[in-house]
C-alpha cells in the first residue's frame, strides 16, 4: 500500500495553519454529529440503566455466547467444505479438457450469479422434497457451500493465473509432469499469493452466516432479535452488543490479513507500487461478501 504518494506538497507555514484550521473544523463537525446522535439516544432514554440491566444477567450473556458459537460453527464447517470443493473446481476450470472446463465454469457461473439469500431460501424448500430433512444448520451450510465454493474457486483461479506462465514452463522443462508442476510448483506459490483474498473470503463466510436468521438457524443475529422480542426496551442495546461481537471476530480476521500482507510486502515480486495497487484492486473485489 503506497499511502505515501502524497497528493500534496509538504505544507509550509501558511498551509500548515490553514490545514490546522480545516482539521479543527472537521473535528468540531464530527463531534457535533456525535453529540446530536448522543442527544437523540439520550432523549429517548437509551442510556437508562433499565435498558442495559438485562445484559448483566449471566443467562443473557450465555444465550448470546451460544449464538456466537453457533455462528462460528456454521462458518467453520462452511469454510472447510467450501474451500475443499473450491480447489478441484478451480483446477477443473483451468483444465485442458473442454467438458471439464465447461462443467466447472457453469457451476461457478450459476452459483456466483445467484444471491446467497435466494439460494438458502430455496435450499430450505427444495431439499426436503427430495427427502433430505436436515436441521437448519444443514440447510444453511448447504447453501453457503454452493455459493462460497464458487467464489473461492474464482479466487484460486485468479491466484494461479496471476503467477505467470514461467513457473509452470520452467517446471515442465526440467522434466516434471503437468500434474507434478501444479502440485509442487504452481499451487504452493499461488496459495501464498491469494492468502489475503482467501482470508477476506473467510470474513465473508462468517458474516454471511447471519443469513441463517431467515431459516431460522439460532445464530448470533437471531439471538439478538430474540432478546429484543423478550425485552423490547433493550432492542438497540442488544443490536449494539451483537455488532461488537461480530466486529471482534471481523477485526481478528482483518488483523490477520494485514499481518500476512505486511509479511508478503517484503517478498512480493510486484515491487512497483502501481502494479501492487492494481493487484490489490483485483483481490479487493473478488473477495467481497455477496449477500452480506
Amino acid at each position: 500500500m503506497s499511502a505515501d504518494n502524497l497528493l500534496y506538497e509538504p505544507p509550509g507555514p501558511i498551509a500548515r495553519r490553514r490545514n490546522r484550521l480545516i482539521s479543527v473544523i472537521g473535528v468540531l463537525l464530527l463531534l457535533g454529529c456525535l453529540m446530536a446522535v448522543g442527544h437523540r439516544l439520550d432523549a429517548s432514554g437509551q442510556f437508562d440503566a433499565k435498558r442495559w440491566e438485562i445484559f448483566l444477567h449471566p443467562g443473557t450473556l450465555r444465550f448470546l455466547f451460544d449464538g456466537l458459537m453457533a455462528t462460528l460453527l456454521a462458518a467453520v464447517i462452511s469454510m472447510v467444505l467450501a474451500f475443499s470443493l473450491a480447489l478441484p473446481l478451480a483446477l477443473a476450470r483451468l483444465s485442458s479438457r473442454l467438458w471439464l472446463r465447461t462443467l466447472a465454469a457453469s457451476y461457478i457461473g450459476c452459483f456466483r450469479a445467484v444471491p446467497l439469500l435466494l439460494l438458502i431460501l430455496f435450499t430450505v424448500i427444495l431439499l426436503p422434497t427430495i427427502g433430505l430433512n436436515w436441521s437448519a444448520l444443514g440447510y444453511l451450510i448447504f447453501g453457503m457451500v454452493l455459493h462460497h465454493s464458487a467464489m473461492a474457486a474464482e479466487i484460486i483461479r485468479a491466484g494461479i493465473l496471476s503467477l505467470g506462465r514461467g513457473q509452470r514452463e520452467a517446471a515442465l522443462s526440467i522434466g516434471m509432469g503437468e500434474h507434478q508442476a501444479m502440485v509442487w510448483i504452481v499451487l504452493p506459490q499461488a496459495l501464498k499469493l491469494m492468502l489475503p483474498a482467501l482470508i477476506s473470503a473467510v470474513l465473508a463466510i462468517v458474516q454471511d452466516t447471519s443469513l441463517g436468521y431467515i431459516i431460522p438457524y439460532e445464530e448470533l443475529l437471531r439471538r439478538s432479535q430474540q432478546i429484543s422480542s423478550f425485552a423490547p426496551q433493550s432492542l438497540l442495546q442488544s443490536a449494539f452488543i451483537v455488532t461488537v461481537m461480530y466486529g471482534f471476530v471481523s477485526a481478528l480476521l482483518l488483523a490477520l490479513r494485514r499481518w500476512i500482507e505486511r509479511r508478503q510486502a517484503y517478498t512480493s515480486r510486484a515491487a512497483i507500487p502501481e502494479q501492487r495497487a492494481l493487484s490489490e484492486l483485483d483481490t479487493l473485489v473478488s473477495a467481497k461478501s455477496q449477500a452480506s
Partner: protein
Amino acid sequence: MSYIERFLGGIAVSVELTLLSFAIAIVLGLLLAIMRVSPWPPFRWFASSYVELMRMMPLLALLLLFTFGLPKLGFIYSLFTSTVLVLGLYSAAWICEVVRAGINTVSIGQIEAARSIGMRFDQILGEVVLPQAVQSVIGPLGNLFIIQIKASAIGAAIGVADITYTAQQINFDTALAVPTFLGAMAAYFLLTLPAGWFFRFLEQKMAVLR
C-alpha cells in the same frame, strides 16, 4: 401469465433498489476516498474508520438495525427506503476502497510532476489523478455493481418485494419450487449479464495504452 408479470414487478423493484443504492454509494464512496487521501487527518480518520466499521458488520445486521432500531429513535422510513439507504451506506465503503486503490495505480511520477508545477491538492486530484484512475477503476466498479444487484436480495429478508421475495411468494401460492427457483435465477441473469456487458464495453472504451 400473471406469474411472469409478478416476476417482472420483482425485477423492477430489484433494479430500483440497485440503481438508487448504487448512486448513493458512488457519491458517498467517492467523498470518502477523497477524504482518505486528503491532507487533513480528522477526515482521513473518519473515512478509514467508516470503512472498517462497515466491513466488520454483516449487511443483514445493519438492515435490521435500520428497520427495527431507527423507529425507536423517531426516524420512520418505508422498508424500501431503509433497504436503499443501508445498501448505499454499506457499498460506499467498498467503493471508497476501490477508488483509493485506483488512485494508487496512478504512477507517482504523474503526481510528482503535478506537484512540481505547483498544483494544489484539489487540482492534482481532480485534473490529474482521478481522470487517470477512472480507467483502472471501471472494471472493479462493474463487479461491485453486479454484486450490488445480488446484494439487493437482502431486501427480501424484511419483505421488500424484489425478485427473491416474489419468488418466495409465488412458491407459497403454487408450490412449484423448481420452476420458480429457475425463474428467479433467470431473472437475476437477465440483470447481471447486460450489466457485465455494459461495464466491459465501458472498460474497452476507456482503455488507454500506458
